[in-house]
């Protein structure tokens, strides 16, 4: 009897819909039928509406079935899924040929969902550690040049050129430098950091090691939000494996370079995704925003020069080194180079992760990939870039997604999170929620954010209750202006984006006339 190999994801998105029960059911059913099965726990392919997506290895390739629930398993065996047969309604054919996946340009996510996340052999068989091997043979300046050449910009949302940041740290003189990875992925509608950490943790470890070698930092921290316990578990196991095999430590693969790192768990504060708050939190303090200057690149963690990058930025570095900066740069448009893992969320039929070059439009993502609304009702508003991103009405869905084009309409691409709402949404409620969220999560250091968000919530409530509406709208605009220009960081400084975009594009929800002039901007 030959072994039948199944892939069942261990990604939190699969666990959250019963993947472990599916594994138990497969084992029980196989035993009953006296079949030998081998179950590999992979990351998620990112077609999250199909989770739990089970793949069966056949001579033709991996065949997909989903969404599988434990109760479906006996029927799937009856239909011959263990031989890759197409008779079951959950059959999707070869995973690679599913259009959602086939149409993507996966660079950063090349291995996610394909390999066993904790198998170093799997990782290396799929190109893992090629980038670091190359970096170890290069001068630090050359590594930084390669990253600069790639055009990679910070994927956390601020889109600052990664190469320039690295160069500042490289040139700084200090007895100790650090790499701090921002894995505090708190924006609603985003999960790409989580997926890469759970599905391909060695990519992040490799990217951080390359950053360390490039700038002369010997220690790194992954600041991970406490809402991601599964990611913490996978990362800690992967770090232990990397240490045992000499990919972390005092003498990486005999190169003479030293680099090690640890995972630090946050504690539920959204603001700690702001880079200087994160530094304070890593130092064991309240996560309060710091004044800049000094730049963290010169005076960061424990007062030392620190590279702070988002998970996706660092996870994109290995392929840039392995294939060259030019290879990566040739994806994308304008000054937005490479790919971005877009995350389709909210009211969409086919939510998931879609990695593509910059320049695609929202409409293509919402309909060609997302399949329209989950509810079957018309889509009405889409928030792009997390809770601090603008709400876009349908008239803006054809703007190409790149940093500059979005900035022109007071919106932001941010971390690539896309949250769709159908026509039942009350945009005045969403505006009030944006202010309330800012009030809950404000670190309290600067007044526009700390007080402004509380007053903003009250003002929007008054508008909704038609309490001196015109006057309160004027006040709200004034307040947003103060928050925009007077806040210390992006939390207070960008909360006006969702608020004002809701007001501009959906005035009727605030009880205002849909004046033609109001639909500008």
């Amino acid at each position, binding site marked *: 009897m030959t072994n039948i190999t199944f892939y069942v994801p261990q990604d939190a998105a699969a666990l959250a*819909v019963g993947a472990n029960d599916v594994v138990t059911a497969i084992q029980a059913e196989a035993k009953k039928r006296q079949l030998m099965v081998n179950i590999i726990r992979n990351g998620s392919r990112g077609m*999250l509406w199909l989770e739990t997506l089970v793949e069966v290895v056949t001579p033709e390739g991996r065949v997909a079935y989903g969404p599988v629930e434990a109760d479906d398993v006996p029927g799937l065996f009856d239909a011959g899924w263990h031989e890759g047969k197409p008779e079951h309604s959950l059959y999707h054919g070869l995973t690679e040929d599913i259009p959602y996946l086939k149409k993507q340009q996966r660079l950063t996510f090349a291995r996610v969902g394909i390999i066993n996340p904790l198998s170093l052999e799997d990782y290396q068989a799929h190109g893992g550690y090629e980038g670091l091997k190359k970096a170890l043979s290069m001068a630090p300046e050359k590594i930084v040049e390669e990253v600069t050449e790639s055009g990679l910009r910070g994927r956390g949302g601020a889109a600052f050129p990664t190469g320039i940041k690295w160069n500042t740290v490289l040139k700084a003189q200090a007895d100790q430098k650090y790499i701090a990875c921002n894995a505090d992925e*708190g*924006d*609603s*509608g985003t999960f790409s950091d989580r997926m890469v950490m759970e599905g391909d943790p060695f990519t992040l470890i490799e990217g951080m090691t390359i950053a360390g070698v490039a700038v002369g930092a010997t220690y790194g921290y992954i600041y991970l939000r406490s809402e991601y316990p599964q990611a913490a578990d996978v990362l800690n196991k992967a770090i232990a494996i990397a240490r045992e095999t000499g990919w972390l430590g005092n003498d990486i693969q005999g190169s003479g370079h030293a680099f090690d790192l640890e995972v630090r768990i946050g*504690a539920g504060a959204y603001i700690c995704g702001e880079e200087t708050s994160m530094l304070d939190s890593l130092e064991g303090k309240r996560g309060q925003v710091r004044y800049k200057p000094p730049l963290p690149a010169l005076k960061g963690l424990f007062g030392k020069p620190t590279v702070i990058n988002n998970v996706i930025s660092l996870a994109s570095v290995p392929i840039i080194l392995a294939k060259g900066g030019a290879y990566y740069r040739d994806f994308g448009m304008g000054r937005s180079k490479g790919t971005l893992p877009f995350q389709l969320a909210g009211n969409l039929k086919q939510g998931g992760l879609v990695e593509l070059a910059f320049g695609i439009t929202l409409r293509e993502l919402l309909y060609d990939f997302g399949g329209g609304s989950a509810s079957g009702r018309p889509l009405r508003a889409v928030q792009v870039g997390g809770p601090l991103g603008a709400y876009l009405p349908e008239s803006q869905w054809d703007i190409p997604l790149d940093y500059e084009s979005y900035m022109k309409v007071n919106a932001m691409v941010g971390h690539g999170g896309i949250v*769709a709402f159908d026509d039942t949404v009350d945009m005045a409620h969403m505006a009030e*929620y944006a202010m309330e969220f800012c009030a809950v999560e404000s670190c309290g250091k600067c007044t526009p954010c700390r007080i402004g968000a509380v007053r903003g919530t009250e003002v929007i409530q008054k508008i909704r209750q038609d309490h001196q509406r015109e006057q309160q709208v004027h006040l709200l605009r004034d307040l947003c202006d103060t928050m925009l220009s007077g806040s210390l960081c992006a939390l207070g400084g960008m909360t006006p984006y969702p608020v004002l975009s809701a007001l501009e594009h959906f005035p009727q929800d605030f009880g205002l006339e849909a004046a033609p002039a109001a639909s500008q901007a």
Partner: protein
Amino acid sequence: MTTPASPAAAQPASDAVKQAALNAVNRYAGQKGNLLPVLHDIQHALGYIPDDAVPVLSEALQLSRAEIHGVITFYPHFHSKPMAPTVLEMCRAESCQAMGANNLIDHARQKLGCDFHETSQNGQVSLEPVYCLGLCAQSPAVMVNGQPHARVTPAKLDKLLGEGA
């Protein structure tokens, strides 16, 4: 670095609390800026961070009580009071709202007879808000004692709580 102590913090720590605090300090000894890992460790051992752990940490880590209290109260994940056996964290963020989270939350409030940051009337469930669990393509999402659940309906929530409470 002395601060006036609150009456609760002035109480001598019970042996169990002292032990948990010192174990945590020892486990992370020598690691820079280790207050968060230490607090996580205590909460993991005891289920919360009792007030009387603060003076023990203050002495062991050479930090003022005010600093430690300030850190505990800054982070929503840390609790100074015991939680119920089942902790239900419900996502309030935009993506979950787009898929009916507000109705689900109302259902939970009604069923449990409590609001956020409170414990159900039977004392079995603590209800906490959370702002994104990273399960946004399968909204609405909740976490029950650290285990994620997605595409949650009121019926599914009742089933989850039936098992947990």
